[in-house]
């Protein structure tokens, strides 16, 4: 089992505690985290990725307790094993497209295999845009660049936060195809958090998150 969570609860000041169902993901799995906005999808992803220590519960990564590690060890594990795609993409505006993709390797302190960047640029049709700044790219090109950045280091899991919700049907389908093909190529698990019901059909494993905001849940064990 690559990634496992148990009894996760997150309490934040000024909002009711969020409890999340247990989860276990293996490499090659495709999991959909479906829930309306406010259900804590991004918070759950943050906890799973080692970015937010839960108030209660555990996260295991390759059978190791993720939050028992030092914070810099967590940063390293995340950098090398997780690929992230954000809804708003978050390409750094001051860097070129190629620099933005390479950022994944630079920040993780790792080197991609030789030719990996060129291969990705070619596969995603970005070769001639490599030295442009994000401002000079179309939305679709930015989306593809963000995917390239997420899979650069052949992560064991690709986490995407609302990758399709801002897109029309055709583009949503194209992005899902791309994510699935890249996950398959790199042998990574795919974990997508969304409220976008259109992509349900792509997944066998669907985890529904309730809108926990209005409720006053009792603390989970």
């Amino acid at each position, binding site marked *: 089992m690559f990634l496992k969570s148990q009894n996760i609860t997150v309490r934040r000041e000024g909002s009711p505690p969020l409890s999340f169902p247990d989860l276990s993901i293996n490499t090659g799995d495709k999991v959909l985290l479906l829930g309306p906005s406010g259900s804590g999808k991004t918070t759950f992803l943050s906890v799973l990725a080692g970015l937010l220590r839960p108030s209660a519960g555990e996260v295991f990564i390759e059978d190791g307790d993720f939050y028992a590690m030092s914070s810099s060890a967590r940063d390293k594990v995340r950098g090398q094993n*997780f690929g*992230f795609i954000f809804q708003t993409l978050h390409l750094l505006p001051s860097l070129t497209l190629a620099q933005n993709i390479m950022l994944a390797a630079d920040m993780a302190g790792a080197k991609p295999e030789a030719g990996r960047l060129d291969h990705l640029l070619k596969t995603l049709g970005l070769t001639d845009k490599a030295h442009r700044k994000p401002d000079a790219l179309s939305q679709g090109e930015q989306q593809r660049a963000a995917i390239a950045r997420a899979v650069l280091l052949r992560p064991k899991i690709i986490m995407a936060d609302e990758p399709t919700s801002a897109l029309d049907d055709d583009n949503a389908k194209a992005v899902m195809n791309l994510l699935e093909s890249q996950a398959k190529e790199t042998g990574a698990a795919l974990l997508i958090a969304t409220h976008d019901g259109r992509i349900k059909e792509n997944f066998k494993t669907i985890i529904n998150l309730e809108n926990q905001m209005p409720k006053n849940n009792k603390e989970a064990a």
Partner: protein
Amino acid sequence: MNAASLAIASIRSRPLHAALCTAAVAAGIALLCAVFLFSQTVSSGFARNAAGIDMIVGTKGSPLQLVLSSVYHADIPAGNIDAHDFEELQRMPQVRQAIPLALGDSYKGFRMVGTSPDYLKLYNAEFADGKTFAAPFETVAGANTGLKVGDKFAVSHGFSANSDDVHDAYLYTVIGVLKPTGTVLDKLLTTPVESVQQLHAAGHDHHEGDRHGHDEAEEEHEEHAAHHHEDEEMDEDQGHEEDHHAGEHEGHDHEGEADLAHQITSVILKVRSPVDLMNLPRKINESSDLMAAVPSYEMARFTKSLGIGRQLVVVLGAGFVILSALMLWATLSSGLALRRYDLAVLRVLGATPRRLSATVIAEALLISGAGALAGVILGHGIAYTAVLSIESLRGLVLPEVLLMPQAMDAGFIALGLIAGVFAAFVPSLTAARTDIAGLLARGRA
């Protein structure tokens, strides 16, 4: 993509902010650098010109005036002393060497110094042409005077370049020209003491001068006097004041002339031991009509008295540096506020908090380092211009030194970098504490 290149990318994204901060750091460092370089150059210039001069002895008065007039040739002498005093000083057991100086005349603003050839050795002077003076009215010209061997000229009384009180009864002949020494010697004319004494003895008794004062003078001198006979009427008119002044001496005319012929302005002394440097001035000051001054001590007092103006500029410069650090702080903080989502992305991609701090610190160091470098270059320029534009420093101070890097430059660049680290301290902690999960959950700010 390391901390530095991320920092450069960040600077590029807000060039105006970065430029303003760089300019502020540069302004502060430039002020500090200019002040310290200027005073260092001036005091090393003073020290270089007084090298080998342990002590200067002259008539009683202001010791600073004595040093300025007789060592740096930057002030007028207060008065003369008797040549016998020179002999007495020379005989003192503590004195290793005594060099007489007789001042009072100049040519086109270049001072004529009656002295001994030892004075040239004091500055390790080398001859570009000709040889050292031996007979009266032979003169050795400094490198900046523009004179060449064989030139003849009359000196005028006083030190002003446009004096019309010309001693044109006597002509000096240039017998040697010196190579540049980088000292005050470059703008001096040197001659035996006797030249000055004869000239002044004659000058105070014009009518006798031509007949009497010339027993030792060269023939060309006679020639010249004859040549200028047509001017004599004017000379006499001008000479009236002097005649009148000399009137009180009329009773002992001969004796008075002998006195004038046996006066010098001051004596440069080299002592035998450092202890003498302490004791001899006290001894001289207590037991005679003479005054002894130690140049290094007087100049230290002098530059100290200039300290208030200097302190003001130092305070101003330090204020600028502090202000620039605060500006940089504000810029980094507002930059972080704009980029906090970027920072969160970097964390998600695996960057450690320390790495984000390093990026912020690198940005601060790049800006403050560039500012400090520009400030040091600017400071050199300011100090160079200042030295060039102050007339009385010409010859005393070598401005070329200011066009080369100095040891203290490293200190100023370090100061700029320290300001940068100070400015980055809080912002770098802020960057390290970026609340990633919260930012991601809220979406792009």
